[in-house]
């Protein structure tokens, strides 16, 4: 098991190891020119998205968890919908709507009779635009965690504050918000990890961040080692966020307040209710409804495309790849999760801990980390074969689907492992023990008891990885075999060529499939609410 997790950790180890390798002259060039931009832009992105997800997530959570207004039930699940929208897709869509030739500016010009240069309009393809796009689709992380935190706050604590003479706003800022701090920190750091991992949005908007830098160094300069070193610096940022997130989650326990009562929500009426509905609708419309409708409109302009073999082949590739990766992740997760249950010990816990770091590592980093050892292996085998047999083996691992699936497993195994482990944790140890005392050895226990009982968790794990793989852009972009396209890659390529309407079909397909885990999440949320 330890060996499995070492293999999974290999790409990250390679990246970290690259720090201790040689530094090529390209570094001086980087330092002189673009490195400063990478750092500054990445930091600005993090600050902006941090503030954005904080503002959107906390206000959405406060409204739906603690207030009562028309449509609250609807908004409490609908506000999760933007999760289905990958950042790079919302970025193309808004660009299509807001750039010079788009419907908004055209309408302005027609209405006021303006011409080019007569008026000022914010440039969407900028750092600020990227911050907005990322905030709009990443706030649900904060929303989800903070909402639960608000719901778990005992009403009595808030009432105590009010009976001690604090007004409602003062209670919010002095009691409710500080109590939710760990949840806020955890949610924001998850959103920031996604921000650092983002490649599609920043590259499309021409913002020089770490991920685009890694791409340019590898494709433009052909410097794999330097790209790996850049990736290692990116990992430093990620690692800090990872620590922050873990610590916040640990602190969450200490912030529980007494027994849980069903929260007595503050009834909003009059202009307050209108404001609440307006705010919630604005978030929902701009984060999901508007871009999704725009995609649908583009698709409907030429619906026949959906049946064309080119699109079907794309979809087939994507589904096949996602299904294989999801199945691999599930098998490994069962192996690791079950191993830890059977032989709980330091080694297993460490192994699973190492694996569960995967979700924090940006796809770009993993791709480079997979590329280096695989290329090395190919070269060694090739030169050995040339020397001994006089034949060339060419590329055995690099540029194959195998390499791509491996990278997906590294990145997403943690998702399925977490699901499987939490499912296993719900099966009490006495269930295992009673089956064993009834004469079943451990392996038939897995088949007869655990797998049937875990069916729900296993399906969830499959689905989550399937959808994540389908949406994943940078890993696929770097590691895909030559001329092998997926929905995400094709959408990105078409959009980069300014063929936004053509990109809409694969993009909409991704969004629709991305809805599946959101539905799952809202169903869980509903059953949690029913249980409380």
């Amino acid at each position, binding site marked *: 098991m330890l060996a499995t997790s070492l293999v999974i950790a290999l790409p990250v180890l390679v990246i970290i190891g690259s720090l201790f390798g040689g530094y090529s002259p390209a570094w001086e060039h980087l330092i002189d020119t673009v490195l400063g931009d990478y750092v500054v832009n990445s930091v600005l992105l993090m600050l902006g998205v941090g503030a954005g997800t904080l503002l959107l997530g906390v206000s959405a959570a406060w409204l739906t968890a603690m207030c009562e207004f028309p449509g609250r039930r609807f908004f409490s699940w609908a506000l999760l919908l933007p999760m289905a929208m990958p950042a790079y897709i919302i970025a193309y869509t808004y660009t299509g709507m807001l750039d010079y030739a788009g419907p908004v500016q055209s309408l302005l010009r027609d209405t006021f009779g303006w011409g080019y240069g007569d008026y000022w309009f914010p440039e969407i393809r900028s750092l600020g635009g990227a911050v907005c796009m990322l905030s709009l689709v990443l706030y649900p992380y904060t929303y989800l965690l903070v909402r639960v935190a608000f719901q778990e706050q005992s009403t009595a604590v808030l009432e105590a504050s009010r009976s001690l003479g604090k007004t409602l706003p003062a209670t919010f800022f002095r009691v409710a918000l500080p109590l939710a701090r760990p949840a806020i920190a955890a949610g924001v750091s998850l959103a920031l990890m996604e921000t650092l991992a983002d490649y599609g949005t920043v590259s499309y908007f021409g913002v020089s961040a770490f991920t685009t830098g890694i791409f340019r160094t590898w494709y433009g300069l052909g410097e794999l080692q330097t790209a790996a070193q850049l990736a290692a610096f990116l990992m430093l940022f990620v690692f800090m966020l990872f620590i922050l997130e873990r610590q916040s989650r640990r602190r969450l326990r200490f912030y529980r307040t007494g027994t849980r009562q069903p929260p007595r929500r503050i009834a909003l009426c009059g202009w307050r209710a209108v404001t609440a509905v307006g705010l919630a609708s604005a978030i929902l419309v701009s984060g999901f409804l508007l871009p999704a409708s725009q995609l649908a409109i583009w698709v409907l302009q030429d619906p026949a495309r959906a049946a064309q073999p080119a699109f079907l082949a794309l979809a087939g590739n994507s589904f096949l790849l996602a299904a294989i990766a999801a199945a691999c992740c599930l098998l490994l997760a069962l192996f690791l999760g079950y191993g830890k249950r059977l032989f709980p010990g330091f080694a297993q816990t460490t192994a699973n801990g190492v694996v569960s770091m995967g979700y924090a590592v940006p796809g770009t980093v993993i791709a480079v980390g997979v590329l280096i050892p695989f290329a090395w292996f190919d070269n060694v085998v090739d030169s050995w074969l040339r020397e001994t047999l006089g034949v060339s083996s060419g590329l055995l691992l690099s540029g194959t689907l195998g390499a791509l699936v491996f990278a997906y497993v590294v990145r997403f195994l943690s998702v399925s492992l977490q699901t499987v482990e939490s499912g296993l944790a719900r099966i009490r140890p006495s269930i295992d*023990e009673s*089956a064993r*005392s*009834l*004469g079943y*050895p451990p392996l038939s226990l897995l088949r007869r008891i655990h797998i*049937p009982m875990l069916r729900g968790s296993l399906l969830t794990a499959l689905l989550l990885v399937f959808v994540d793989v389908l949406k994943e852009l940078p890993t696929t972009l770097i590691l895909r075999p030559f001329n092998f396209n997926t929905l995400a890659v094709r959408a990105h390529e078409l959009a980069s060529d300014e063929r936004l309407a053509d990109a809409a079909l694969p993009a909409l397909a991704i969004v629709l499939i991305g809805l599946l885990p959101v539905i799952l999440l809202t169903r869980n949320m509903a059953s949690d609410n029913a249980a409380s």
Partner: protein
Amino acid sequence: MTQQLDVNRVSVRFGDFTAVDSASITLNKGEIGCLLGPSGCGKTTLLRAIAGFQTINEGQISVRGRVLSTPDMQVSPEQRRVGMVFQDFALFPHLNVSANVGFGLRHLQRRERESRVRRLLKMVSLDDYAGAWPHELSGGQQQRVALARALAPGPEILLLDEPFSSLDSELRTQLASEVRDLLKADGVTAILVTHDQHEAFAMADQVSLLHDGHIDQTDVPYNLYHRPANAFVAQFIGGGSLIDVTVNADGELNDRLGVLDMKSRSFAPGQQLRLLIRPDDIEYDESSAIQLRVVERAFRGANFLYELLLPDGQHVPCLAPSHIAADKGSLLPVRFNLQHVVIFNGEHQVFT
């Protein structure tokens, strides 16, 4: 009688902590034993060691002469032929009642298995629930399914880990004696773990009282109450107070409680002893000249439990009928009925 279970000087340690300290129990075929003790006394650890879920550091466990555990060797749980009923019942939620009961019978032919499941369900009066799902059953029914499931493979010994603790307190004692009748009718050898002495007394032939990993006394319930081996047993079973007394010049116990009938047994004058006073050892008597001050009182419905102050400052309990309502601080006339009193010299009982 053949010896069914032999636990011989078994110790279990977790690091520096000794959870079970050289514990020994033997049970004959058809006997029901009980491990009784407060939480953390090691009773569940010992039970899990017998079931094979816990390795042992010293001693030996054997069932019908077959060695199951030594410090160097462990027969795995599935090969022990030991049945277990868990505290939370641990029914398999994805299987219905008859599949749960038949789970341990996979070695049997289908027809044989079905008839055995039917017989067991009939035995626990759940024959109408064969197709029901665990979550559809009440706590008491789930408990009976767990019992039937554990008995199905015909285990050589049945282990019950706090089997009644998740049920209503009124049901417990009743269920305990029902389960006892069931096991007795089937000739099952069993060990029960509990912290509830009423459960223990209702079910077991012999009770082992555990305290800090040690078995303080193994005996029939009557003797645990009337002949406790030490002060801990005395206080855990039945409650009461231990008070210090000094032997008078005549070798009698006559310390503010009147002279005790020691049945010709005398003590050295001046010897310090301790008397166990059970609540029913001191009775209300309105004609009595002895009046003790009420320190505390608790209404129990059928009676009052008073805590009274002796002249030397020690406290004793007194059970009085429920219509005798004396206020805190007032005086209560009482009579001592100490003819079956338990006397300790240091930690150990002086048998009278």
